[in-house]
Structure formats: C-alpha cells, structure tokens
C-alpha cells in the first residue's frame, strides 16, 4: 500500500494521480466516494444521520518543485512547492511531470572546481535534462511539477524509506483503520478525506471540510522523529507508537480520551505537545462552520521534506488501531 501511494507524484496543486490511487483504495470500504474539483478525495463510510460525525483526514499532496523557466540551452529554473529542504537537492535525480515524464538532475559543481559556499536558493537551482530548449518544449511546459526520485525501500525491521511518506503514511493509517473497522458497529457516522494543497497552506482541507462538516476530527499527519542532530525535546522516538497531539488549538477533551483509550487498548503512544496551532489540516478543519473538536495523531518521521523520508510501519499500525478504537467506542463523544 505504501509502495503504491509513494510511487505516484501528486505535488501540491497537481494531486490527481495520487488522489486516484487513494480513491481506488478507499473504494474497498465505500461506494460513496469521489474526487472533487480541487483534487480532494472524500468518502462517506457510515451515514446513519443520527450519530455525531467523525472525520478522518490526511493530506494527499507532497512537496516538490515547479517549472518556472527554460533557458536557451534547455536548463530549467524552478520554484518551490511547499518547503522542500534545499540542503539536500544537489545532484538529486528528479522527474518532471509534463506531457511526458522527463528525468533530470539538479546541477552542482564538483569538488574539483567548487570554491564558493552556501546552500543555493531555490531560484538558483538548475535542472539538467539533456534536452535542448526546443526538445523540451514539446515535452514539458511552465507550471509542470517536479518530484525527487526515491525508490520506496524496506529497511531494517519494519522501517520503510520513500519520498512522500509525508503524508501518504497518514493516508495509509486511515485505510488500515477502515480495514479494522469493516463490519463493526461504530459510535459515529464516519467520513474520510484525503485533502490537497496542505503543503501550500491547508487549502484543500478548507474546501473539503465545508460540506463534510464534522463534529469530531482526527487528523493523521507526520511529525518529527529524533535524529542525531535534533533537539531531543522537540522530537518523538521512531517505533514507539502514535503521537497524540495536545495543543491549545486542539480539543483537550479529545486528546485525553484518546490517551485513555490508548492505555486501555494497550496501543503504544507518545505525546506531542504544541504551543498554538499544529501546522496540520486540523488548524483549518477545526474552525469550519461552527467548529469541530479536533485532535492530531501523528506518525514519527525522519528527514521530513527530503527525497528519502523514513517511518516505522508499526507506528502506522498503532495509529490505525487508535483511530479504530476511537471510532468504535467513542470516548469524548459518548462521555
């Protein structure tokens, strides 16, 4: 599932191919699902009309680049879509998603001649495809999206490396939860959304949530797993379970019921405490119409917004289990 989800492009604003993969997976759980004009995938899983509405959301877009100029020699200049990590782009292999898929390289001076220092700004990046301007113009156009190449790969144990795990692993956690919930009695009417343009300002979520109008929201996104150079206090541990969010912008009541559910169901979890908003779709979705009670369930991820992100699939499973436990038993919803 992760392989299929992470092998498609779907940079913000051009998510169609990723949305279609996610929609085909969602169809295993409901026929009442579709892709809207903005690329958002939405589906109604349970709709009795007399229970509170729970929405499960994850974003479907990924960070990348966008073609902004082709020079006379066929070298491509780009803009950033979302916040890709500039430090890691030198000599990176990329794919340009035009009329054809074109392979290229981010140019870099070799050590033999390199003298200057400093990480290039996005507007200084040059992409080399081996085509002339004329050859390129029949294949791609300005505005085409560019992804960083990374073959999804299993690592030691249950760890997994791919591009776009932010947030395709959140999408996966929802699909796994739906599998667990198949045929079960739920405490809610249940909707699902895989929303677009999160990386460029949670725009798809704002549009999708309007009609879905949930009472409760669980937002599945990724968060920072500890790396050797990061601040211990700002990171979770990989492989130690789902991160339950606590923040002024989230419902503490919901956070607390998820914590107690995780304890009683013996689901490994960690806390992620944030000082204001969460930087996820929960910020937008919880202030839709009259508002919704929201909580984030985050999957620890290393090397966010680089071509090769890492997660532990066990953390996706614990996230799915907690979603499923909450959907079945309620918690805050049924007191």
């Amino acid at each position, binding site marked *: 599932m992760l392989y299929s989800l992470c092998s498609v492009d779907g940079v913000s604003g051009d998510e169609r191919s990723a949305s279609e993969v996610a929609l085909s997976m969602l169809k295993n759980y409901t026929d009442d699902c579709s892709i809207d004009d903005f690329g958002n995938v939405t589906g109604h899983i349970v709709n009795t009309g007399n229970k509170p509405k729970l929405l499960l959301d994850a974003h479907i877009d990924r960070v990348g680049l966008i073609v902004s100029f082709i020079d006379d020699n066929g070298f491509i200049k780009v803009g950033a879509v979302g916040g890709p990590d500039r430090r890691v782009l030198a000599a990176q292999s990329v794919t340009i998603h035009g009329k054809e898929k074109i392979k290229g*390289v981010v140019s870099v001076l070799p050590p033999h001649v390199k003298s200057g*220092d400093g990480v290039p700004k996005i507007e200084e990046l040059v992409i080399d495809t081996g085509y002339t301007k004329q050859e390129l113009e029949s294949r791609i156009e300005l505005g085409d999206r560019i992804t960083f190449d990374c073959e999804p790969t299993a690592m030691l144990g249950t760890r997994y490396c791919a591009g776009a795990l932010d947030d395709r692993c959140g999408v996966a956690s929802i699909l796994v939860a739906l599998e667990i919930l198949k045929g079960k009695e739920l405490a809610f009417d249940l909707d699902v959304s895989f929303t677009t343009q999160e990386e460029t300002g949670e725009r798809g979520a704002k549009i999708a949530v309007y009609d879905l109008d949930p009472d409760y929201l669980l937002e599945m996104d990724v968060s920072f797993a500890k*790396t050797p150079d990061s601040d211990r206090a700002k990171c979770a541990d990989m492989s130690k379970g789902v991160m339950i969010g606590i923040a002024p912008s989230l419902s503490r009541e919901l956070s607390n019921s998820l914590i107690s559910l995780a304890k009683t169901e013996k689901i490994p979890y960690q806390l992620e405490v944030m000082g204001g908003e969460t930087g996820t779709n929960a910020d937008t979705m919880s202030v839709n119409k009259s508002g919704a009670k929201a909580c984030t369930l985050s999957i620890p991820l290393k090397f966010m*917004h680089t071509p090769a992100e890492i997660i532990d699939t066990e953390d996706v499973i614990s996230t799915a289990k907690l979603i499923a436990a909450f959907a079945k038993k309620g918690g805050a919803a049924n007191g």
Partner: protein
Amino acid sequence: MAELFDIIKKLCNADGTSGDEGDVTKLILSMLPSDCDTKIDPLGNIIVNKKGAKTPKNKVMLAAHQDEVGFIMTYITDDGNLKFTTVGGINPEVVIGRQLHFKNGTVGIVGGKAIHQQSPKERDNPVKLDTLTIDIGASSKAEAEKYVSLGDCAYFRSDYTELGNGYLREKALDDRIGCAIMIDMLNSELPYDVTCVFTVQEEIGTRGAKVAAYTVKPDYAIVLETTTACDFAGNDGEKRVCELGKGCVVSYMDRGTIYDRELYHLGFEKAKEIGAPCQTKTLVAGGNDSGAIHTSVGGIRTVALSVPCRYLHSPSCMIKKSDVTSTARLAYAMYLALAEK
C-alpha cells in the same frame, strides 16, 4: 558501440570504492577474452597483456581506474547511527538526503533534522561532513552491528538512466567508462601488442597507477578518464571547463600533470584525421592516474583522453554518449600512432 554501453552499464552496477574494488575486479575479469595474459598485482591492479598481429616499435600502456568514490564506516553511535568518512573527494551537499547501500543489501539514508526545525542559518549553510550520519533503521548499536561493521563501505545507489537526447546518468561513470573502452578494445583483434591496466586506488591518490606503471614500464601511456564539465546554467566562459557533446577532452595540464606537448598536439591531429570531435579544458583542475604514471620508471610520456562529465563524484554523474564513442575512437587511433611512432 551498443556493446560498449552495455559494458558500461554492467560495470557501473558494481560497487567498488578505493581499497574495496574486488567486485569490480571480478566483473572485469569475467569480461576479458581468454587470449589475454592477465595478472593481478599486490595492490589489486589488473594488468592485461594482449598479443596483436605485430610487435610494436614502442610499448603502449592504456590505463583506467576501477575504483569509484564511496564511504567507509568509522563509528557506530549508541543509538545505532553510523558515522563515516568519504573515500575520495565528495562534497557533503551531494551526500545529505541520499539513499546509500552496503554490499550486503543494507540500505541507509543520510539525513538530519527536518527543515522545520532548522534555524535560518542552518538552512543557508552547507552541512559539514563530520556532522552527517547514516541511518539504516537500527534502534541501537547492537542492532546496527548485526548488519554493518567498522570499515564496511557504502555506495551511492546505482541508477543507470538514459537522459534527454543521447545522455546517460549513473553513479560510477568515473571511471568505468575508461575500463569499458579497454574491455571493448581487448575483445577485438589488435594490430599490435598492448598492455591495459585497470588500476585501483585512483580516488585516494593515484596509488595503484604508480606501481602498475613500474611493473609495465611502457614507452607511452594513454590514460582514459572522465573529467569535470561545468557547462550548465550559471557557468560562463572558462568556468564551463569543457562541454558535453564536443568530443574527447585532451588535456594540456591538470593538478597532477603537465602533459607532453607533442602527444597533446598528436591527440588533436589524430582526432582530426579520424573525424572525431575533440576539445581541451579551459581550467587547470582535477587530476588523474597520469600524475603517477608520467613520473614513474624515470619518466613515461603520457597523454590523457577524457570523457567530459557533469556532476562528478555525485550519484548523478552525467555524460553524452557521443563523447564516449569519440573518446574510444581517439584512444584506438592514439594506440596505433604511439605503437608505430
């Protein structure tokens, strides 16, 4: 020539950094014809003598290096991350964010804290090599030690890709191209006896070539290499160094060698004669096995013929296929010319 690119593809798929060339050596040996006299010296150089139709006036040696740049593991942290140093010159900017692999199949990622957690200064300053670690997915030192030992080497992922109109992208084009040209040549009938040397440890100081040249004691040496091309947007004039598509690079000087003037001119003459495009470098940079060879055994007259290559010492070396063909043709013409000279 289709076969030449097939050889390049196979060679690039092998992993062999300096001092760890074994797999590449085995592969090269498997591609040599049975009519060659082949030996491996104490450092690991493959020295191949092949009889031609005639004994030449001068003994000609061709040389290309087997090794590629890579990484060697130096320490495993308590939480299972691997510290490493580079084997050969690799800028850290092309290392961070990369997927690397070990010969036993273990995959590692070089990464750091998320962009969201970097200070503005951290975002703008290139990473330092000694702060980077490789994450193989291990949670502890003990777990990591099951898969990786100190001294093990890691490699950029091989990804032989045809790019654009007649270009190639691969990690180890430097210098498996040179090796492939020699293998291709050794598999054909030759007019004169020749010695081909597949050297080791070029990337850490042209160490293999030094001893191989002593053993072979040729009258003339032809070094087949790849060389820095910077002909991409942002570099003008002499900073482009040399250009893809403009043929074989014949050098007059680099950091290791001031080349024999007569042979330099002969290179251009022969290129003209056979109708192969040819160019030189507009910047004195880089170096290759010529540095060690031309000062061996009391001095050996040496010429370097190189394929211009963008993004050297990165996972994405890029060349134009027509330049490989020109270089192979010029190498053959020079071998004939020097044998008879």
